[in-house]
Protein backbone atom coordinates (compact mmCIF):
# COMPACT_ATOMS: atom_id res chain seq x y z
CA UNK A 1 0.00 0.00 0.00
CA UNK A 2 1.34 3.42 -0.87
CA UNK A 3 1.06 6.34 1.47
CA UNK A 4 -0.25 9.58 0.10
CA UNK A 5 1.91 12.62 0.85
CA UNK A 6 -0.63 14.07 3.22
CA UNK A 7 -0.67 10.93 5.39
CA UNK A 8 3.09 10.74 5.87
CA UNK A 9 5.18 12.43 8.58
CA UNK A 10 6.19 16.04 7.82
CA UNK A 11 9.86 16.45 6.93
CA UNK A 12 9.65 20.23 7.11
CA UNK A 13 7.82 21.98 9.94
CA UNK A 14 7.70 25.76 10.18
CA UNK A 15 6.08 27.17 13.31
CA UNK A 16 5.19 30.85 13.87
CA UNK A 17 8.12 32.07 11.75
CA UNK A 18 8.62 35.80 12.11
CA UNK A 19 11.33 37.95 10.66
CA UNK A 20 12.13 41.64 10.45
CA UNK A 21 14.57 43.66 8.34
CA UNK A 22 15.15 46.61 10.63
CA UNK A 23 11.70 47.89 11.54
CA UNK A 24 10.08 46.23 8.50
CA UNK A 25 8.30 42.96 9.20
CA UNK A 26 8.81 40.49 6.34
CA UNK A 27 7.24 37.28 7.64
CA UNK A 28 4.37 37.45 10.12
CA UNK A 29 4.25 34.23 12.13
CA UNK A 30 4.15 31.72 9.29
CA UNK A 31 3.37 28.06 10.01
CA UNK A 32 3.43 25.26 7.45
CA UNK A 33 4.45 21.64 7.02
CA UNK A 34 5.79 19.69 4.06
CA UNK A 35 5.31 15.93 3.99
CA UNK A 36 7.63 13.26 2.72
CA UNK A 37 7.67 12.91 -1.05
CA UNK A 38 5.60 16.06 -1.49
CA UNK A 39 6.20 18.95 -3.89
CA UNK A 40 5.24 22.09 -1.99
CA UNK A 41 5.11 25.24 -4.07
CA UNK A 42 5.45 28.57 -2.28
CA UNK A 43 3.76 31.15 -4.45
CA UNK A 44 3.23 34.86 -4.19
CA UNK A 45 3.86 38.16 -5.88
CA UNK A 46 7.03 40.25 -5.66
CA UNK A 47 7.73 41.31 -2.08
CA UNK A 48 5.42 38.67 -0.62
CA UNK A 49 8.29 37.16 1.41
CA UNK A 50 8.63 33.87 -0.48
CA UNK A 51 12.37 34.19 -1.18
CA UNK A 52 12.96 35.27 2.44
CA UNK A 53 11.04 32.21 3.59
CA UNK A 54 13.22 30.02 1.39
CA UNK A 55 16.42 31.58 2.76
CA UNK A 56 15.18 30.80 6.26
CA UNK A 57 14.28 27.23 5.29
CA UNK A 58 17.78 26.58 3.96
CA UNK A 59 19.40 28.13 7.02
CA UNK A 60 20.95 31.16 5.31
CA UNK A 61 19.02 33.57 7.51
CA UNK A 62 17.94 33.41 11.12
CA UNK A 63 14.37 34.29 12.05
CA UNK A 64 13.41 36.87 14.65
CA UNK A 65 10.98 34.35 16.12
CA UNK A 66 9.53 30.92 15.52
CA UNK A 67 11.06 27.59 14.70
CA UNK A 68 12.06 25.61 11.60
CA UNK A 69 12.42 21.86 11.86
CA UNK A 70 13.95 19.94 8.98
CA UNK A 71 13.87 16.14 9.23
CA UNK A 72 12.74 16.57 12.84
CA UNK A 73 15.72 18.75 13.84
CA UNK A 74 15.41 22.40 14.86
CA UNK A 75 17.91 24.13 12.59
CA UNK A 76 17.88 27.23 14.81
CA UNK A 77 19.56 25.26 17.61
CA UNK A 78 22.22 23.65 15.44
CA UNK A 79 25.88 24.63 15.71
CA UNK A 80 27.67 25.64 12.52
CA UNK A 81 29.34 22.23 12.42
CA UNK A 82 26.01 20.41 12.84
CA UNK A 83 24.48 22.57 10.12
CA UNK A 84 27.38 21.77 7.79
CA UNK A 85 26.77 18.06 8.36
CA UNK A 86 23.03 18.57 7.87
CA UNK A 87 23.52 20.33 4.53
CA UNK A 88 24.67 16.99 3.08
CA UNK A 89 21.06 15.81 3.31
CA UNK A 90 19.66 18.70 1.30
CA UNK A 91 20.17 20.29 -2.09
CA UNK A 92 19.45 23.81 -3.24
CA UNK A 93 19.02 25.00 -6.83
CA UNK A 94 19.40 28.77 -6.87
CA UNK A 95 17.55 31.04 -9.25
CA UNK A 96 20.54 31.99 -11.41
CA UNK A 97 22.21 28.59 -11.03
CA UNK A 98 25.02 29.96 -8.79
CA UNK A 99 27.55 27.79 -10.61
CA UNK A 100 31.19 28.71 -9.98
CA UNK A 101 32.40 30.54 -13.05
CA UNK A 102 36.00 29.38 -12.61
CA UNK A 103 35.03 25.69 -12.82
CA UNK A 104 33.62 23.59 -15.66
CA UNK A 105 30.06 22.27 -15.38
CA UNK A 106 31.44 18.85 -14.43
CA UNK A 107 33.72 20.29 -11.71
CA UNK A 108 30.80 22.29 -10.34
CA UNK A 109 28.61 19.20 -10.05
CA UNK A 110 31.48 17.14 -8.65
CA UNK A 111 32.35 19.68 -5.93
CA UNK A 112 30.08 18.32 -3.14
CA UNK A 113 31.36 14.78 -3.83
CA UNK A 114 34.97 15.95 -3.77
CA UNK A 115 34.45 17.83 -0.50
CA UNK A 116 32.32 15.33 1.40
CA UNK A 117 33.26 11.87 0.16
CA UNK A 118 36.39 9.83 -0.38
CA UNK A 119 35.28 8.48 -3.76
CA UNK A 120 37.95 8.08 -6.42
CA UNK A 121 38.03 10.40 -9.41
CA UNK A 122 36.66 7.80 -11.84
CA UNK A 123 33.60 7.06 -9.67
CA UNK A 124 32.92 10.76 -9.18
CA UNK A 125 33.11 11.31 -12.95
CA UNK A 126 30.61 8.49 -13.50
CA UNK A 127 28.24 9.99 -10.90
CA UNK A 128 28.50 13.42 -12.54
CA UNK A 129 27.68 11.94 -15.97
CA UNK A 130 24.76 10.06 -14.42
CA UNK A 131 23.26 13.25 -12.98
CA UNK A 132 23.89 15.11 -16.22
CA UNK A 133 21.93 12.38 -18.01
CA UNK A 134 19.07 12.86 -15.53
CA UNK A 135 18.89 16.59 -16.29
CA UNK A 136 19.36 16.05 -20.06
CA UNK A 137 22.79 17.68 -20.18
CA UNK A 138 24.86 14.66 -21.17
CA UNK A 139 28.16 15.65 -22.75
CA UNK A 140 28.19 19.17 -21.32
CA UNK A 141 30.56 18.46 -18.41
CA UNK A 142 33.59 20.09 -20.05
CA UNK A 143 31.87 23.38 -20.84
CA UNK A 144 32.22 26.47 -18.67
CA UNK A 145 29.02 27.90 -17.11
CA UNK A 146 29.39 31.00 -19.30
CA UNK A 147 28.92 28.76 -22.36
CA UNK A 148 25.47 27.54 -21.21
CA UNK A 149 22.04 29.05 -21.85
CA UNK A 150 19.76 30.12 -18.96
CA UNK A 151 17.80 26.87 -19.05
CA UNK A 152 20.97 24.76 -19.20
CA UNK A 153 22.42 26.66 -16.23
CA UNK A 154 19.33 25.82 -14.19
CA UNK A 155 19.56 22.16 -15.23
CA UNK A 156 23.23 22.06 -14.26
CA UNK A 157 22.29 23.66 -10.91
CA UNK A 158 19.73 20.89 -10.41
CA UNK A 159 22.37 18.27 -11.18
CA UNK A 160 24.67 19.80 -8.55
CA UNK A 161 21.83 20.06 -6.04
CA UNK A 162 21.01 16.34 -6.35
CA UNK A 163 24.53 14.93 -6.71
CA UNK A 164 24.55 13.80 -3.05
CA UNK A 165 21.04 12.28 -3.43
CA UNK A 166 19.53 14.63 -0.84
CA UNK A 167 16.33 13.97 1.08
CA UNK A 168 15.18 17.59 0.69
CA UNK A 169 15.44 19.70 -2.43
CA UNK A 170 14.79 23.45 -2.48
CA UNK A 171 14.39 25.31 -5.76
CA UNK A 172 14.29 29.07 -6.11
CA UNK A 173 12.30 30.29 -9.12
CA UNK A 174 13.20 27.36 -11.41
CA UNK A 175 11.22 28.65 -14.39
CA UNK A 176 11.82 32.39 -14.02
CA UNK A 177 12.98 34.05 -17.23
CA UNK A 178 12.66 30.91 -19.36
CA UNK A 179 10.53 30.31 -22.42
CA UNK A 180 7.44 28.08 -21.90
CA UNK A 181 9.02 24.99 -23.49
CA UNK A 182 12.17 25.09 -21.34
CA UNK A 183 10.08 26.01 -18.31
CA UNK A 184 7.83 23.01 -18.89
CA UNK A 185 10.83 20.70 -19.27
CA UNK A 186 12.19 21.93 -15.92
CA UNK A 187 8.84 21.19 -14.31
CA UNK A 188 9.02 17.67 -15.74
CA UNK A 189 12.50 17.39 -14.33
CA UNK A 190 11.30 18.33 -10.82
CA UNK A 191 8.58 15.72 -10.96
CA UNK A 192 11.02 13.12 -12.32
CA UNK A 193 13.45 13.86 -9.46
CA UNK A 194 10.65 13.52 -6.93
CA UNK A 195 9.54 10.18 -8.38
CA UNK A 196 12.95 8.70 -9.17
CA UNK A 197 14.83 9.80 -6.07
CA UNK A 198 11.87 10.01 -3.64
CA UNK A 199 12.71 13.59 -2.70
CA UNK A 200 10.68 16.10 -0.76
CA UNK A 201 10.76 19.28 -2.80
CA UNK A 202 10.03 22.91 -1.98
CA UNK A 203 9.73 25.22 -4.97
CA UNK A 204 9.48 28.98 -4.73
CA UNK A 205 7.93 30.51 -7.81
CA UNK A 206 5.64 33.21 -9.09
CA UNK A 207 4.88 31.32 -12.32
CA UNK A 208 1.28 30.11 -12.06
CA UNK A 209 1.39 27.50 -14.84
CA UNK A 210 4.53 25.97 -13.43
CA UNK A 211 3.12 25.96 -9.88
CA UNK A 212 -0.09 24.23 -10.96
CA UNK A 213 1.84 21.66 -13.00
CA UNK A 214 4.19 20.46 -10.27
CA UNK A 215 2.54 21.16 -6.91
CA UNK A 216 1.04 18.60 -4.59
CA UNK A 217 0.17 21.53 -2.35
CA UNK A 218 0.57 25.27 -2.73
CA UNK A 219 1.26 27.88 -0.05
CA UNK A 220 0.19 31.34 -1.15
CA UNK A 221 2.04 34.18 0.54
CA UNK A 222 1.08 37.84 0.54
CA UNK A 223 2.93 40.59 2.41
CA UNK A 224 4.49 38.08 4.78
CA UNK A 225 1.24 36.27 5.62
CA UNK A 226 -0.02 32.92 4.41
CA UNK A 227 -3.27 33.41 2.52
CA UNK A 228 -3.91 29.71 2.05
CA UNK A 229 -2.29 26.29 1.96
CA UNK A 230 -3.98 23.68 -0.14
CA UNK A 231 -4.04 21.52 -3.22
CA UNK A 232 -4.05 23.05 -6.69
CA UNK A 233 -7.83 22.68 -6.91
CA UNK A 234 -8.35 24.20 -3.46
CA UNK A 235 -6.20 27.21 -4.33
CA UNK A 236 -7.98 27.65 -7.67
CA UNK A 237 -11.36 27.46 -5.96
CA UNK A 238 -10.42 29.88 -3.18
CA UNK A 239 -12.75 32.85 -2.79
CA UNK A 240 -10.02 34.96 -1.17
CA UNK A 241 -9.81 38.19 -3.19
CA UNK A 242 -5.99 38.48 -2.96
CA UNK A 243 -5.59 34.91 -4.23
CA UNK A 244 -8.00 35.51 -7.09
CA UNK A 245 -6.13 38.74 -7.93
CA UNK A 246 -2.90 36.76 -8.04
CA UNK A 247 -4.42 33.98 -10.15
CA UNK A 248 -6.06 36.44 -12.53
CA UNK A 249 -2.97 38.65 -12.60
CA UNK A 250 -5.05 41.55 -11.43
CA UNK A 251 -3.22 44.50 -9.93
CA UNK A 252 -5.15 46.56 -7.46
CA UNK A 253 -3.89 50.07 -6.85
CA UNK A 254 -3.28 50.98 -3.26
CA UNK A 255 -5.85 53.56 -2.12
CA UNK A 256 -4.19 56.20 -0.03
CA UNK A 257 -5.49 58.95 2.12
CA UNK A 258 -4.68 62.32 0.36
CA UNK A 259 -2.69 63.53 3.38
CA UNK A 260 -0.69 60.33 3.49
CA UNK A 261 -0.04 60.55 -0.28
CA UNK A 262 1.15 64.16 0.06
CA UNK A 263 3.36 63.19 3.00
CA UNK A 264 4.91 60.39 0.91
CA UNK A 265 5.67 62.81 -1.94
CA UNK A 266 7.11 65.60 0.18
CA UNK A 267 8.84 63.43 2.77
CA UNK A 268 7.32 65.59 5.52
CA UNK A 269 5.42 64.04 8.43
CA UNK A 270 1.67 63.80 7.76
CA UNK A 271 0.51 65.97 10.68
CA UNK A 272 2.87 68.84 9.66
CA UNK A 273 1.28 69.04 6.22
CA UNK A 274 -2.30 68.93 7.35
CA UNK A 275 -1.67 71.78 9.79
CA UNK A 276 0.37 73.91 7.42
Amino acid at each position, binding site marked *: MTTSPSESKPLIEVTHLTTHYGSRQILNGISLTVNKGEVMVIMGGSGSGKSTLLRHL*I*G*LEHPTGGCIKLLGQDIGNMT*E*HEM*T*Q*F*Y*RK*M*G*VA*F*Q*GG*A*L*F*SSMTVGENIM*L*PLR*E*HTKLDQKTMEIMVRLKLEVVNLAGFEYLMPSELSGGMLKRAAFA*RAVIMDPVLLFCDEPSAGLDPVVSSSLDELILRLRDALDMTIVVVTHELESAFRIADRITVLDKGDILTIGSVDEVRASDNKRIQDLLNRHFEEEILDPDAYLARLTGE*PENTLSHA
Partner: protein
Amino acid sequence: MLTSDRPLSPLLQKVEAVGRMTTKWVDSLGFGTALLYQSAFWLCLGGHRKQQVRLAPIVSQMMEVGIRALPIITLVSTTIGLMLAIQGIDALKDFGAEHQVTFGVALSVVREFAPLITGILIAGRSGSSFAARLSTMMINNEVDALRVMGINPVRFLVVPSLVSMMIMVPSLTLWADMVALLGAGIYITTDLGISMGTYIGQTIAYLGTEDVLHGLGKSFVFGILITLVGVINGSSVTGGAEGVGRVTTRAVVHSILAIILADLLIVFLLTR
Protein backbone atom coordinates in the same frame (compact mmCIF):
# COMPACT_ATOMS: atom_id res chain seq x y z
CA MET B 1 10.94 57.06 21.22
CA LEU B 2 14.34 58.60 21.82
CA THR B 3 14.87 59.87 18.27
CA SER B 4 12.67 61.88 15.98
CA ASP B 5 12.01 61.22 12.28
CA ARG B 6 12.77 64.87 11.48
CA PRO B 7 15.94 65.55 9.42
CA LEU B 8 19.02 66.42 11.48
CA SER B 9 20.82 69.73 11.24
CA PRO B 10 23.88 69.75 8.90
CA LEU B 11 26.25 69.70 11.89
CA LEU B 12 24.49 66.73 13.49
CA GLN B 13 24.42 64.97 10.11
CA LYS B 14 28.23 65.29 9.95
CA VAL B 15 28.57 64.01 13.51
CA GLU B 16 26.30 61.10 12.63
CA ALA B 17 28.33 60.35 9.49
CA VAL B 18 31.56 60.26 11.55
CA GLY B 19 29.86 57.95 14.04
CA ARG B 20 28.64 55.63 11.28
CA MET B 21 32.09 55.54 9.69
CA THR B 22 33.74 54.75 13.04
CA THR B 23 31.27 51.94 13.69
CA LYS B 24 31.93 50.58 10.20
CA TRP B 25 35.71 50.62 10.72
CA VAL B 26 35.42 48.91 14.11
CA ASP B 27 33.05 46.38 12.53
CA SER B 28 35.54 45.69 9.72
CA LEU B 29 38.36 45.32 12.24
CA GLY B 30 36.32 42.76 14.18
CA PHE B 31 35.42 40.93 10.97
CA GLY B 32 39.09 40.86 9.93
CA THR B 33 40.11 39.41 13.30
CA ALA B 34 37.36 36.78 13.06
CA LEU B 35 38.50 35.89 9.52
CA LEU B 36 42.07 35.46 10.72
CA TYR B 37 40.96 33.28 13.63
CA GLN B 38 38.70 31.16 11.41
CA SER B 39 41.44 30.77 8.80
CA ALA B 40 43.87 29.56 11.48
CA PHE B 41 41.16 27.21 12.76
CA TRP B 42 40.47 25.63 9.37
CA LEU B 43 44.16 25.44 8.54
CA CYS B 44 44.96 23.59 11.78
CA LEU B 45 41.75 21.66 12.48
CA GLY B 46 40.06 21.39 9.08
CA GLY B 47 41.15 17.75 8.74
CA HIS B 48 39.61 16.95 12.12
CA ARG B 49 36.28 18.38 10.87
CA LYS B 50 36.65 16.39 7.62
CA GLN B 51 37.06 19.67 5.75
CA GLN B 52 40.77 19.93 5.20
CA VAL B 53 42.28 22.82 3.29
CA ARG B 54 43.33 21.44 -0.07
CA LEU B 55 46.78 21.95 -1.55
CA ALA B 56 45.67 22.37 -5.19
CA PRO B 57 43.89 25.74 -4.73
CA ILE B 58 46.81 27.03 -2.65
CA VAL B 59 49.29 26.11 -5.41
CA SER B 60 46.99 27.63 -8.01
CA GLN B 61 46.75 30.86 -5.98
CA MET B 62 50.53 30.88 -5.49
CA MET B 63 50.95 30.75 -9.25
CA GLU B 64 48.51 33.61 -9.71
CA VAL B 65 49.75 35.78 -6.85
CA GLY B 66 53.45 34.99 -7.11
CA ILE B 67 54.76 33.56 -10.34
CA ARG B 68 52.60 35.67 -12.64
CA ALA B 69 53.62 38.81 -10.72
CA LEU B 70 57.33 38.20 -11.30
CA PRO B 71 57.68 40.29 -14.49
CA ILE B 72 56.13 43.45 -12.98
CA ILE B 73 57.98 43.00 -9.67
CA THR B 74 61.26 42.55 -11.57
CA LEU B 75 60.70 45.60 -13.74
CA VAL B 76 59.66 47.92 -10.92
CA SER B 77 62.32 46.71 -8.46
CA THR B 78 65.13 47.07 -10.99
CA THR B 79 63.96 50.59 -11.76
CA ILE B 80 63.77 51.46 -8.05
CA GLY B 81 67.29 50.09 -7.52
CA LEU B 82 68.64 52.15 -10.42
CA MET B 83 66.90 55.31 -9.19
CA LEU B 84 68.18 54.86 -5.64
CA ALA B 85 71.73 54.42 -6.94
CA ILE B 86 71.49 57.53 -9.15
CA GLN B 87 69.97 59.67 -6.38
CA GLY B 88 72.32 58.24 -3.73
CA ILE B 89 75.50 58.93 -5.67
CA ASP B 90 74.28 62.41 -6.58
CA ALA B 91 73.44 63.27 -2.96
CA LEU B 92 76.59 61.77 -1.44
CA LYS B 93 78.86 63.38 -4.07
CA ASP B 94 78.41 66.73 -2.27
CA PHE B 95 80.07 65.22 0.81
CA GLY B 96 82.64 63.21 -1.15
CA ALA B 97 81.03 60.08 0.26
CA GLU B 98 79.70 58.48 -2.94
CA HIS B 99 81.55 55.24 -2.11
CA GLN B 100 79.13 54.85 0.82
CA VAL B 101 76.20 54.62 -1.60
CA THR B 102 76.19 50.81 -1.45
CA PHE B 103 75.45 50.97 2.28
CA GLY B 104 72.52 53.35 1.89
CA VAL B 105 71.05 51.55 -1.11
CA ALA B 106 71.38 48.09 0.46
CA LEU B 107 69.70 49.07 3.69
CA SER B 108 66.92 51.14 2.12
CA VAL B 109 66.13 48.46 -0.46
CA VAL B 110 66.10 45.49 1.91
CA ARG B 111 64.42 47.13 4.91
CA GLU B 112 61.99 49.47 3.18
CA PHE B 113 61.66 49.73 -0.58
CA ALA B 114 61.43 46.06 -1.59
CA PRO B 115 58.69 45.08 0.93
CA LEU B 116 56.77 48.30 0.37
CA ILE B 117 56.87 48.24 -3.43
CA THR B 118 56.07 44.51 -3.52
CA GLY B 119 53.18 45.01 -1.10
CA ILE B 120 51.73 47.90 -3.10
CA LEU B 121 52.07 46.03 -6.41
CA ILE B 122 50.44 42.89 -4.98
CA ALA B 123 47.67 44.99 -3.41
CA GLY B 124 46.92 46.48 -6.82
CA ARG B 125 47.19 43.18 -8.62
CA SER B 126 45.90 40.47 -6.27
CA GLY B 127 44.04 42.39 -3.53
CA SER B 128 41.76 43.86 -6.19
CA SER B 129 41.37 40.43 -7.75
CA PHE B 130 40.28 38.88 -4.40
CA ALA B 131 37.75 41.64 -3.83
CA ALA B 132 36.37 41.40 -7.39
CA ARG B 133 36.13 37.60 -7.30
CA LEU B 134 34.48 37.46 -3.89
CA SER B 135 32.04 40.28 -4.57
CA THR B 136 31.00 38.69 -7.88
CA MET B 137 30.49 35.38 -6.09
CA MET B 138 28.40 37.12 -3.42
CA ILE B 139 26.18 38.76 -6.03
CA ASN B 140 25.72 35.50 -7.97
CA ASN B 141 24.78 33.59 -4.76
CA GLU B 142 27.88 31.43 -5.19
CA VAL B 143 28.91 31.96 -1.54
CA ASP B 144 25.40 30.94 -0.42
CA ALA B 145 25.70 27.91 -2.71
CA LEU B 146 28.93 26.93 -0.95
CA ARG B 147 27.25 27.22 2.46
CA VAL B 148 24.28 25.06 1.50
CA MET B 149 26.64 22.46 0.07
CA GLY B 150 28.15 22.24 3.56
CA ILE B 151 31.39 23.89 2.45
CA ASN B 152 32.69 26.62 4.74
CA PRO B 153 33.41 29.68 2.55
CA VAL B 154 36.32 30.81 4.74
CA ARG B 155 38.00 27.41 4.42
CA PHE B 156 37.26 27.15 0.68
CA LEU B 157 37.86 30.72 -0.48
CA VAL B 158 39.85 32.67 2.10
CA VAL B 159 42.40 30.19 3.46
CA PRO B 160 44.01 29.29 0.10
CA SER B 161 44.38 32.99 -0.72
CA LEU B 162 45.74 33.80 2.72
CA VAL B 163 48.28 30.97 2.74
CA SER B 164 49.44 31.76 -0.78
CA MET B 165 49.90 35.43 0.16
CA MET B 166 51.78 34.56 3.36
CA ILE B 167 54.21 32.50 1.28
CA MET B 168 54.42 34.47 -1.93
CA VAL B 169 54.64 38.09 -0.72
CA PRO B 170 57.82 37.42 1.32
CA SER B 171 59.19 35.31 -1.57
CA LEU B 172 58.53 38.10 -4.04
CA THR B 173 60.09 40.57 -1.61
CA LEU B 174 63.23 38.46 -1.51
CA TRP B 175 63.25 38.46 -5.30
CA ALA B 176 62.66 42.23 -5.32
CA ASP B 177 65.63 42.63 -2.89
CA MET B 178 67.90 40.81 -5.28
CA VAL B 179 66.85 42.48 -8.53
CA ALA B 180 66.76 45.97 -6.96
CA LEU B 181 70.27 45.47 -5.57
CA LEU B 182 71.37 44.13 -8.95
CA GLY B 183 69.86 47.15 -10.71
CA ALA B 184 71.59 49.47 -8.26
CA GLY B 185 74.81 47.46 -8.67
CA ILE B 186 74.84 47.87 -12.44
CA TYR B 187 74.73 51.68 -12.08
CA ILE B 188 77.09 51.89 -9.09
CA THR B 189 79.77 49.67 -10.67
CA THR B 190 79.58 51.64 -13.92
CA ASP B 191 79.58 55.07 -12.28
CA LEU B 192 82.11 54.45 -9.53
CA GLY B 193 84.31 52.12 -11.57
CA ILE B 194 84.28 49.25 -9.07
CA SER B 195 83.84 45.61 -9.98
CA MET B 196 80.56 43.75 -9.51
CA GLY B 197 82.37 41.34 -7.16
CA THR B 198 83.43 44.25 -4.93
CA TYR B 199 79.89 45.67 -4.95
CA ILE B 200 78.36 42.31 -3.98
CA GLY B 201 81.00 41.84 -1.26
CA GLN B 202 80.25 45.32 0.16
CA THR B 203 76.51 44.65 0.08
CA ILE B 204 76.85 41.34 1.93
CA ALA B 205 79.15 42.95 4.49
CA TYR B 206 76.78 45.84 5.15
CA LEU B 207 73.59 43.79 5.36
CA GLY B 208 72.84 41.74 8.46
CA THR B 209 70.41 38.84 8.67
CA GLU B 210 68.12 41.00 10.81
CA ASP B 211 67.86 43.56 7.98
CA VAL B 212 66.64 40.91 5.55
CA LEU B 213 64.29 39.41 8.15
CA HIS B 214 62.95 42.88 8.98
CA GLY B 215 61.88 43.31 5.35
CA LEU B 216 60.55 39.78 4.97
CA GLY B 217 58.63 39.97 8.27
CA LYS B 218 56.95 43.16 7.14
CA SER B 219 56.02 41.62 3.79
CA PHE B 220 54.48 38.66 5.62
CA VAL B 221 52.23 41.09 7.53
CA PHE B 222 51.45 42.94 4.27
CA GLY B 223 50.37 39.65 2.67
CA ILE B 224 47.89 39.02 5.48
CA LEU B 225 46.60 42.59 5.34
CA ILE B 226 46.08 42.56 1.56
CA THR B 227 44.06 39.33 1.77
CA LEU B 228 41.92 40.43 4.71
CA VAL B 229 41.21 43.86 3.24
CA GLY B 230 40.28 42.24 -0.10
CA VAL B 231 37.96 39.76 1.59
CA ILE B 232 36.35 42.35 3.91
CA ASN B 233 35.64 44.68 0.99
CA GLY B 234 34.56 41.89 -1.35
CA SER B 235 32.07 40.50 1.13
CA SER B 236 30.55 43.92 1.82
CA VAL B 237 29.35 44.32 -1.77
CA THR B 238 25.89 45.68 -2.46
CA GLY B 239 24.24 46.22 -5.82
CA GLY B 240 25.38 44.69 -9.08
CA ALA B 241 28.34 45.30 -11.37
CA GLU B 242 28.67 48.86 -10.06
CA GLY B 243 29.05 47.48 -6.53
CA VAL B 244 31.81 45.12 -7.69
CA GLY B 245 33.72 48.04 -9.22
CA ARG B 246 33.28 50.10 -6.08
CA VAL B 247 34.54 47.43 -3.65
CA THR B 248 37.45 46.56 -5.94
CA THR B 249 38.67 50.16 -6.01
CA ARG B 250 38.09 50.47 -2.27
CA ALA B 251 40.03 47.25 -1.62
CA VAL B 252 43.12 48.62 -3.41
CA VAL B 253 42.98 51.97 -1.62
CA HIS B 254 42.41 50.35 1.79
CA SER B 255 45.14 47.74 1.21
CA ILE B 256 47.73 50.39 0.33
CA LEU B 257 46.66 52.47 3.33
CA ALA B 258 46.86 49.43 5.60
CA ILE B 259 50.31 48.52 4.25
CA ILE B 260 51.72 52.01 4.81
CA LEU B 261 50.24 52.33 8.30
CA ALA B 262 51.44 48.86 9.28
CA ASP B 263 54.89 49.69 7.89
CA LEU B 264 55.03 52.87 9.96
CA LEU B 265 53.94 51.01 13.08
CA ILE B 266 56.46 48.19 12.60
CA VAL B 267 59.31 50.61 11.84
CA PHE B 268 58.39 52.68 14.90
CA LEU B 269 58.24 49.64 17.18
CA LEU B 270 61.39 47.91 15.88
CA THR B 271 63.80 50.71 15.10
CA ARG B 272 63.20 53.62 17.43
